[in-house]
């Protein structure tokens, strides 16, 4: 507990690469939840010991594939109801995961535990520059309330510039 400021947690964790189970990397982090105002995201500082795997090749393959599509990409229900994700949709899924991490961070308190449950809908947005842009409707599962929360987010991505969530908004339950 820190005076009038909030509550700080010191964490030691192990990061595991979802695509390469043997690829683990140690990480230390400090998370500060602010007292009072629940509308500010917790402060996070972290250090990664070692290096994360280089993904340039896969990134470029995905980037080129999307750029060469005749029509803007549109997809629904990723994964499907039986948990399957087609190989072509896997990068779209991973991108949503990364982007949802940002949304989750911005909306977390000491009493929430969010997970990405499913991508309900994703639509590529045409751009005149070299970024890829996707408009996602995702479903977040919150563990304590057990609620499924629809969330819309605009995601920008480029192999060299990484992921950015440019706009997001919580949606009402159907």
């Amino acid at each position, binding site marked *: 507990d820190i005076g009038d400021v909030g509550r700080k947690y010191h964490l030691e964790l192990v990061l595991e690469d979802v695509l390469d189970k043997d690829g683990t990397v140690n990480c230390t982090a400090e998370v500060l939840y602010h007292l009072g105002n629940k509308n500010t995201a917790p402060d996070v500082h972290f250090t990664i010991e070692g290096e994360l795997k280089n993904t340039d090749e896969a990134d470029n393959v995905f980037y080129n594939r999307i750029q060469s599509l005749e029509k803007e990409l549109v997809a629904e229900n990723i994964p499907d*109801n039986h948990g*399957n994700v087609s190989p072509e949709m896997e990068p779209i899924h991973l991108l949503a995961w990364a982007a949802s991490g940002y949304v989750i961070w911005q909306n977390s308190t000491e009493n929430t535990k969010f997970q990405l*449950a499913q991508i309900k809908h994703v639509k590529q947005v045409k751009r005149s520059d070299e970024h890829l842009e996707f408009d996602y409707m995702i479903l977040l599962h919150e*563990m304590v*309330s057990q609620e499924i929360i629809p969330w819309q987010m605009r995601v920008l991505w480029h192999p060299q510039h990484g992921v950015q969530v440019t706009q997001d908004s919580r949606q009402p339950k159907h």
Partner: protein
Amino acid sequence: DQVLHIVPETFQQVQHLQHLCSTLLLDLWKPLLPEDIWAGEDLHIRVPAALVQEVKDSLDQHMISYKVLIPDVQELVDQSMPRERRSHRQIPEGYVYTQYHPMEEIYQWMTQIQKSNSELVTQHYLGKTIENRTMYYLQISQPSDKTKKIIWMDCGIHAREWISPAFCQWFVKEILQNYKSDPKISRFLQNLDLYVLPVLNIDGYIYSWERDRLWRKNRSPYMNGTCYGTDLNRNFNSSWGSIGVSYNCSSEIFCGSGPESEPETRAVAQFIERKKSDILCYLTIHSYGQYILTPYGSTTKPPSNSEELMHVAEKAAAALMGKYGTSYEVGSTSLILYSNSGSSRDWAHMIGIPFSYTFELRDKGTHGFVLPADQIQPTCEETM
């Protein structure tokens, strides 16, 4: 079958199309009714395979141009079904335990299981759901002159946790396939009876297949049918309504209008209450999170036999980890997860059942409720 896209140009064409639809009883996809066909508006008609040529000839004769929107309806239907579901097998000899099954098939499976294992298995009526579906449990019992203690296990109290009913079915299969050859299982059955309820929340489970994959509660109507569902695992009479619940029907953790307000809860509670002096262990299977949870959720005060409860749970977690390295956390819900009241596990312990556990199966959130079918086998094997 094909679906044709036509934009009629004249009133005469509209009339002809209406005539065609009604005489040949064609399936209008857009609009819904022949009288809503208008010139200049999109028309989508599904034409049965046998009539395709006749219809096209008729359109050509009347100079009505058309496009084939869907060249093969069956192909589209097949593609839209997950690959595994297309091979429709129901009998346990061919029953695929590594796929998720809809309720219809689970009902058939129970009947078959009893038929092919009648020396050990009997199917029993437990009660009815709010939508009037029948709840059955399976009793696995080796004939003997001594009265045996009971282990009860229920699955599928929360509709979206599909891996749970999958586990109950797997469990039954494993026991029945191996009780003669596996000394552990045969010793087990000499001293214990197993009662398995493969799907507790049947209405909810069906709803998660047909309407909303992430549905959790039952399908009880409230507020004049404007809101549905009670969280059955908040509806038991264990500090009901005190903590970790909502009194609002629109919440996922709505505890109902009172303890045991739901027929599904009552069906289970009445049975267990009746048999409680013989029940040694109550197990309830959920997902996800990878936990073995002990009482209580409603208070952090430990249960009377807390040491023994933890010891057994820790051994279980260790055995589970030994299979594929999957780690499960062990502890009381209120300490390691969150507070809640009205859970079936708490209730079972409060009425005197010494060993009462909630299992939260794989995974830790990567797939969450939508666990891919290829994880059914490893999940079930390690949990077994």
